[in-house]
């Protein structure tokens, strides 16, 4: 008597599981955007390209034989001008509204004891947002007033900029 009564339990369980799985998958796929690694990579690539372009434009002297803006900004610690110009380059679109990119820039250099050091140059506070990093080697002449312990003489420092979208 007990044997026969447990007849279709497995079948019912199978059908129920099938309906549950199909419904869940359908709902998940139709209601959410699934970001695959490939797509996040595209967004990163767009930001990275923009960042490298902006630094290249900043580091191209407008006249032959003169110092580039970027070199001047770092050498003379012109944080306000750097901030203004970089944000203009990063956020200007061909139509309104402006983009909402933020950045945080640091400069890596060798100090007077020839060891590596860095200081925060300009930009917004970085709270571990999803960001991309672009870098550029910048040649700066002597007479550095930006940091007291930077070694003297012509040198190349590494500018590292984190860019993210707010």
């Amino acid at each position, binding site marked *: 008597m007990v044997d026969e009564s447990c*007849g*279709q*339990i*497995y*079948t*019912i*369980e*199978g*059908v129920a*599981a*099938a*309906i549950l*799985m*199909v419904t869940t*998958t*359908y709902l998940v*796929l139709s209601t959410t955007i*699934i970001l*695959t690694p*490939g*797509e996040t990579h*595209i967004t990163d*690539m*767009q930001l990275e*390209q*923009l960042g490298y*372009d*902006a630094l*290249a*434009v900043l580091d*191209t002297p*407008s*006249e*032959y*034989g003169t110092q580039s803006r970027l070199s001047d900004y770092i050498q003379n610690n012109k944080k306000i001008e750097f901030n203004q110009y970089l944000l*203009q*380059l990063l956020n*200007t*679109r*061909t*139509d309104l509204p402006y983009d909402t990119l933020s950045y945080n820039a640091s400069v890596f250099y060798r100090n007077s004891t020839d060891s590596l050091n860095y200081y925060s140059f300009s930009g917004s506070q970085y709270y571990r947002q999803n960001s991309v990093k672009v870098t550029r080697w910048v040649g700066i002449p002597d007479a550095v007033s930006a940091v007291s312990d930077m070694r003297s003489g012509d040198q190349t420092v590494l500018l590292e900029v984190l860019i993210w979208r707010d």
Partner: protein
Amino acid sequence: MRMNKSRHRLNQITNDSGQLSIDFIIGLSIFMIALIMVSTMASGLLIGLRSKTIDYDAVAYRTGVILVEDPGENTTFPGQIITDPSVQWEFIGLSEKARVLRFGLSLYKSTPNILSKKKVDSYGNHTIYNNLEDYRSRIIFGSYPYHFNITLLPLEGSLSPVYSGEPYNPYSSYGYIRRIVLIKTPGEFVVDLNDYSNPMYNDGQLSVRIDSNQLFDTRKGPIYWTDPMKEELRINLTNISSIANCTACSNFVNLTQIAYSYSYYDPAVGWISVGPIIIQPPSLTVGFNMTKDGMLPSTYFLNNINSSILTKFTAGYFIQKTQVSGNQALIAINYTFDPMTANVSSTSTIAPLYANVNPVLIPAVLEVRIW
């Protein structure tokens, strides 16, 4: 009774038959079929999602790279004397536009992100490139008819934005890339005439030599040199009153003629000089323009000048003007002043010319949208 019950239980526990019940098999089969179906469906949908947007973004990226980092096709080596406009795509006009193979706005291969103003102007010339297919076949490629919108917006100066493609819906999704570029605008060659005043032998001739060796200063590199074949050439004669011969007429100077001449080296013969060839009045000459004391003259003959003469030759003006191939032709611009009014002389006033006012680089934003 009690014994029967316990025997029955014993039978149940020791039922070690290897066969599964039909019920279990059916249940498992339904579950497996559903599982396979769901996994197929899910992965198929993901592939669909990925390929679409990545495709649009990739095409946008590629189009951006072609425009910003490529000099286009047809193109010639830097410094080459061009005798046929069809070897350089930006000089090809409406009638022969089929010969333009690919747009690319960069000056040369070695100067990514530095755009040529002439190329930007030609690219945005909708009289020549008057339908979408002209652009699609030269920057987007492929058989799939992508929709596109490409806009170049200068951030400084007086250059106007360049639009191409179709209007886009900002709220729909599209493949996108934004590039930051510099547009090279022409420099100016300023000659202070105070250095060339010659009251002893005044025959009114002043020759400004455009020396390609000086213009193509390889130390400066392509961003800062001037290519007289591909870029606009501006010559500004300043301090005109310093050569004036006529104090009675308030130091005014009269210009009677402007011409150009050139010389080139033929290995068989040696140096050959051609010219001077008179430049016809501005109204009859495409690409030539003179300004007197900051104003456009009403007639070709520039009378009563006392401050400056700015002569502009648009990019490509000297193409077909010098019938030599190779890369060595010295072009000179010959100004003829009325000797009664000006103290200049052909014997001493040949001014070797170099870029003393540098070209200006104007930052701009280029956006490509593909859908």
